[in-house]
């Protein structure tokens, strides 16, 4: 029987990750070693760590995303690499991004609910384009008249944005309490710009995600 040692496991894992056209989950990596010649316990995990460390000075890195492990070009060398492809669609309109954000943070959500928050109708082409990219999908229908589709994001969406889980999305800013609106005189002049005013803008944006951090919107899901 072959001796499957750590160095062989590492080489197999590296080659497999590079050979595959999509991220490989741990279980599939382990499955490369047949039952009668299994990789030693934890050797695949050790291989991943070793390979990840080995990327420190290289042009690629090993990352874990929603559907598994993959190698990808490091951000800092990407501008050079991107010259391989002259035409690549890398920009998305605000309408697309806002629609995507609402689906990501408030899923499952209907198109009507998206329109309610954005204050405008959602162009069908946006939904269609997001579906064609396999970033969103219908996960059912809300049980209200018209049975609107409930939309949610996919693993492909997470993979594309290099995320492992939904809760790795940037945290949603908190709503400020509107209990005490300042009483207002009708024709007050505009309030001068003050540093204080700026500071009140987005206090939560830089809050680091804690372990149990989930998008703040989760409580709205079943509204």
């Amino acid at each position, binding site marked *: 029987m072959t001796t499957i040692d750590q160095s062989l496991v590492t080489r197999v894992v590296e080659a497999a990750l*590079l050979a595959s056209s999509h991220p490989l989950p741990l279980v599939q990596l382990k499955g490369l070693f047949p039952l009668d010649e299994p990789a030693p316990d934890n050797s695949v995990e050790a291989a991943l760590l070793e390979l990840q460390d080995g990327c420190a000075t290289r042009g690629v890195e090993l990352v874990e995303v929603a559907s598994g492990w993959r190698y990808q*070009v490091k951000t800092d060398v990407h501008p050079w*690499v991107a010259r391989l492809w002259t035409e690549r669609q890398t920009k998305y309109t*605000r309408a697309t991004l806002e629609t995507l954000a609402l689906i990501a943070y408030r899923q499952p959500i209907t198109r009507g609910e998206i329109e309610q928050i954005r204050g405008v109708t959602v162009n069908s082409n946006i939904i269609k384009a997001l579906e064609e990219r396999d970033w969103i999908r219908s996960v059912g229908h809300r049980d209200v008249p018209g049975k609107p589709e409930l939309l949610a994001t996919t693993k492909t969406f997470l993979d594309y944005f290099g995320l492992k889980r939904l809760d790795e999305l940037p945290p949603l800013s908190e709503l400020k309490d509107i209990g005490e609106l300042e009483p207002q005189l009708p024709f007050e002049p505009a*309030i001068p710009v003050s540093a204080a005013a700026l500071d009140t803008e987005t206090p939560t*944006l830089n809050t680091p995600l804690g372990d149990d951090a989930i998008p703040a919107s989760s409580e709205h899901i079943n509204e």
Partner: protein
Amino acid sequence: MTSETSTGSTAAAAAQNPNTRPQQQEMPLAMVLGQPLVEVPKDLYIPPDALEVILDAFEGPLDLLLYLIRRQNLDILDIPVAEITRQYVDYIQAMHEMRFELAAEYLLMAAILAEIKSRMLLPRPPSEEGLEEDPRADLVRRLQEYERYKKAAEDIDTLPRQERDTSLVSAFVPDRAAVRLPPPVELREMLLALHDVLKRAELFTQHAIKRDALNVRQRMGELLDRLADGAFHRFESLFSAEEGRLGVVVTFLGMLTLAKEQLVDIVQEAPMAPIYVKSLVTGDDAPALETLSSEFDDPEPAEFQA
């Protein structure tokens, strides 16, 4: 996540700099003739060819309203409704005059603002059950809600993403021939098949095969293996005492069955003379039969009725 930010990179990388706090009033609304249009001109004079792109730059009335509020660094919780309404309506008016078809939402918002404004102007009588809700409350709620998702969209846009900030990589695989794994088989499946075939052959009645017959079958293979050289072997040499009585019996039965199936020849030249056994299986390159183990420590010795 974003581990490194490029030093020699493009605007894309710059946008990822976490220290650059997005500031509404500096975001170009549009590019007009190659120049970024940072804000709607205060005098509301808008070049005709610019108005359309500006309109496109707003994602609806809430977005326009937020822009107007943020442009003046106003607190969203403290909107000077009258002033904002005036600006908003002026703006809508301008676009209307340019005969742009305005989405109904923009006009609806103008109506909402006008209503809030008029309610703000009216003296609010102290209510019996506490304070009456501020007429702006509902609008503020909507603006806040919209703003957080607008911000979330910007945040998502700064996530390092495929194609723009990174690319998937792969190595060439010289031979992509798929491995074809044999199908899985459950023992039960095999037994069911055997059940069927035996039933078909009506063998149940003819062969009362007991479980130990398999021991015998296994021993038959082993015996054939030991006789594989084609030479005569002393009958006794085929037994091993260490296996005990049971082992000896099984070997004996195996030998008899082999003889019956004409796989071995058993010869004794004279009464009481040594008995020799020779394989009738024609010698060949067949691999040795050593793969069958041969334990006879079955805790429940059974009768042998071959």
